[in-house]
């Protein structure tokens, strides 16, 4: 019996990585598992995928999937600029950033914001557990006000909300999911990977060791009890996508440039994924009330990506031969002429 293969003839095992060294039950491992399936089902060429991360338990996970891909496990918080440089050097890469809430919202916040501002082609997944897992459970900047650590310490600050912050920066793909909500998570991952600019997917991913207790607002129990998807999302890959139809009624259909199609069905009355300001208001209200909204909050295509704005040749800069990198002798002569008084 041969294993099932995907569109490009690879079995799902081709998308596996090394054995996880995370704590058993860690939400991040669930996200990894979803990624493996999603990459397989999407038929991503492993060598095109560039796995980018920072430092943290979450940032280790690129070691645990798609070992046929290159990975860059950068310094703490510095993944976005490294990913930016990589995709500029080779625009055919598909950069997937996996980061944590500390990596993204504490030390790396400035870079995160600037990547969003530039609309760098980058699928940015935040495995958000509200704590620094790897350094043993201090609050991160996304911890909710009033959340409690195992020892009882209470967080007194407002969180950095990755999703409303992404809306603030004009991000065209803003979503939140839950590590335990496999179906939704995988659909969102597929859509996020197909989005041309920066897509932000904030995944509540419980830290079973340091933040899965009562009083936590990132525990499995908390998430299971409260998850409230505001929309239901469907994703039709480009090789299956029908001709685009005009969105009607409760369903919004958004074609992505690669030919795939995102189908958004409202669950919550009045939630409009085209309206960033509406989403912003709704998410803030939800936070104030302790609600846990998930789904695709905002989807807007058409904004040029950072790489598009650079007006580059089609071939990856990294692969240009000497003849296209070093200008001819006449160019030097011209330059020198300009320097002759």
């Amino acid at each position: 019996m041969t294993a099932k293969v995907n569109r490009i003839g690879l079995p799902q095992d081709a998308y596996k990585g090394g054995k996880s060294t995370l704590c058993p039950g860690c939400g991040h491992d669930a996200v990894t598992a979803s990624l493996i399936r999603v990459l397989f089902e999407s038929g991503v060429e492993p060598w095109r995928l560039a796995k980018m991360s920072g430092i943290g338990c979450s940032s280790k996970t690129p070691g645990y999937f798609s070992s046929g891909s290159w990975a860059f496990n950068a310094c703490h918080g510095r993944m976005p600029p490294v990913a930016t440089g990589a995709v500029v050097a080779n625009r055919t890469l598909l950069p997937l950033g996996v980061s944590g809430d500390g990596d993204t919202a504490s030390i790396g916040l400035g870079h995160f914001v600037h990547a969003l501002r530039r609309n760098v082609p980058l699928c940015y997944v935040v495995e958000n557990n509200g704590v620094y897992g790897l350094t043993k459970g201090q609050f991160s900047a996304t911890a909710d006000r009033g959340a409690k650590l195992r020892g009882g310490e209470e967080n007194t600050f407002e969180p950095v909300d990755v999703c409303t912050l992404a809306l603030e920066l004009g991000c065209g793909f803003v979503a939140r999911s839950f590590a335990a909500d496999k179906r939704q998570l995988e659909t969102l991952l597929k859509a996020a990977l197909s989005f041309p600019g920066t897509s932000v997917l904030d995944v509540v991913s419980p830290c079973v060791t340091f933040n899965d207790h009562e009083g936590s607002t990132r525990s499995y129990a908390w998430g299971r009890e409260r998850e409230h998807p505001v929309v239901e999302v469907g994703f039709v890959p480009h090789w299956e996508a029908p001709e685009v139809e005009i969105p009607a009624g409760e369903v919004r259909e958004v074609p992505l440039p690669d030919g795939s199609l995102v189908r958004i069905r409202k669950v919550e009355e009045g939630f409009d994924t085209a309206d960033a300001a509406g989403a912003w208001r709704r998410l803030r209200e939800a936070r104030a009330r302790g609600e846990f909204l998930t789904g695709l909050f905002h989807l807007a295509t058409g904004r040029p990506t950072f790489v598009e704005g650079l007006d580059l040749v089609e071939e990856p800069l990294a692969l240009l031969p000497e003849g296209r990198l070093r200008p001819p002798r006449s160019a030097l002569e011209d330059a020198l002429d300009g320097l002759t008084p």
Partner: protein
Amino acid sequence: MPAPNDFVLKVGTVNGSGSQTANLVLLRALFRMGVPCSGKNLFPSNIAGLPTWFEIRAHPRGWLARRRGVDLLVAMNPASAAQDLAEVLPGGVVVYDEPLALAGRRTDVAAHGVPFGKLVLEVCPEPRLRRLVVNMIYVGVVGRLLGLDRGELDAALARMLRGKEKALGLNRAAVDLGWRWAGDHLPAPCPVAVERPPRNLNEGRILVDGNAAAALGAVFAGVSVFAWYPITPSTSLGDALAGYLGKYRRDPATGKATFAVLQAEDELAAVGMAMGAGWAGARAMTSTSGPGISLMGELLGFAYYAEVPCVVVDVQRLGPSTGLPTRTAQGDILQVATLSHGDTRHPMLFPSSVAEAFTMAGDAFDLAERFQTPVFLMSDLDLGMNLWPSEPFPFPEKPLDRGKVLKEEDLARLGKGGFFRYVDRDGDGIPYRTLPGTPGGLGSYFTRGSGHDEFGRYTEDPAGYVKNVERIARKWETLRSALPAPEVIRAGTEPAPVGILHFGTTRWAVEEALSILREEHGIAADACRILAYPFHDGVGEFLRAHGDLYMVEQNRDGQMASLLRAANPEPVVGLEGILRYDGFPPDARSVVDAVLVGRRSAP
């Protein structure tokens, strides 16, 4: 009275008053006449209003160092006039804006007041432009005084304002007015004078600043990603680079760019982008100055350890912290040598001239890709932002060295398990790498700053970890042997009693000092110019061959000497520092004086 073509001309004006064009016209006219000369801009860290100076030094032998003392002063700025006047050598000449009333303030100089305010009304009806046009009047006055060739003056002006016909007319009129006014009012001949040399000593030469030269070097080395964050004095490198790239690196067919210039949000991002690009296979570079270097530490330590190529240009400026951003120094050497915690080391190249800024920028890319490590081009403000004459830069004939990169077909040949990222296959410490995106499913690897073994796997195993860091230390030794030998100037066939070490732009003061020592003091001295770190064996040889040793450098703490002592398991005996750290480029006399003191106090 100085010999013809041997003088320092200094113009003191107000920052933002637009005197730069005027000063360049003077310099270029002189240059066109075939007189060896160079120009230094001494400017404040503000945008407008503070004192600024331009110094032109001419010397028949082409000395390029700054020289203390002024022969001809143009004093336009009330705020600095007194201080400027004090710098004029006895017998010197002063041209000043009449209201400054400098006449008679010194009896040993000839001071000429010029009614610039009145004159400018004659040529410039538009009040808005007068502040600028005034400067061209002093060009005329000074040109006449010095005996510049009027044709060359006009030609220099015309070339500078090429394409701006209206401005040219106005400026030419101003030059002419100054020229005539000087003819009518000033005594001739002037003791500070220019003579057209029998042979044009600048034939075929260019005049350029080091930042533009390094930018050109990068362009012809095929830089494809440049990420930066503005900071004085490296900003003009980015500007020049963007300009040249736009001109010479667009695809002829499509007009599309074969380069990307990325203005980052800070220096951490700038170097991160360069590293990401270098990792992905681009020729990647960033440029910055001291504060940026300090911010890049963590990432560059990563690049050292994970072996990611990139080029870092450090255009050094004065002082710790923000210091004096518009003053020059060689003060980042110790910081860069071991930048980042842990056992991290970085190679540095020390360009002394615009020509080396050009060639070494190219070398830096080859070294970075060959050795898979960040390579630092240690420029400085004096080199980067001042104008230096040079032979035209040679077109680089050597093909680009892209280093040990395995392609799809290489990987297929090696087969599964044939490629591991950090294995030392060749015994030179340099591993092989692959570029992300290489198809075939065989080349992927994991890049990390955490502990890894030669297979690129995460490891906490002491043996695997140690093996890898020892290989990197071995690579360092291979690298050392690939770096240029010092340039040694010998006074004779036997080692001279005095040995002077130096590097970068300090060169010009030292070379001039050698001749003064020999000609005026009968002291034979050898000189050793360090071109790169880690040090070539030749540096140690020079040290061993000389008893009375001096290291000339532009910092307070004797940084290069420290590095030399630290690097040498053999003791370094009797190395005296000649240190300058006031932000001005060193001059030959200071070096000479220090050596004379050293000689006297030597046992």
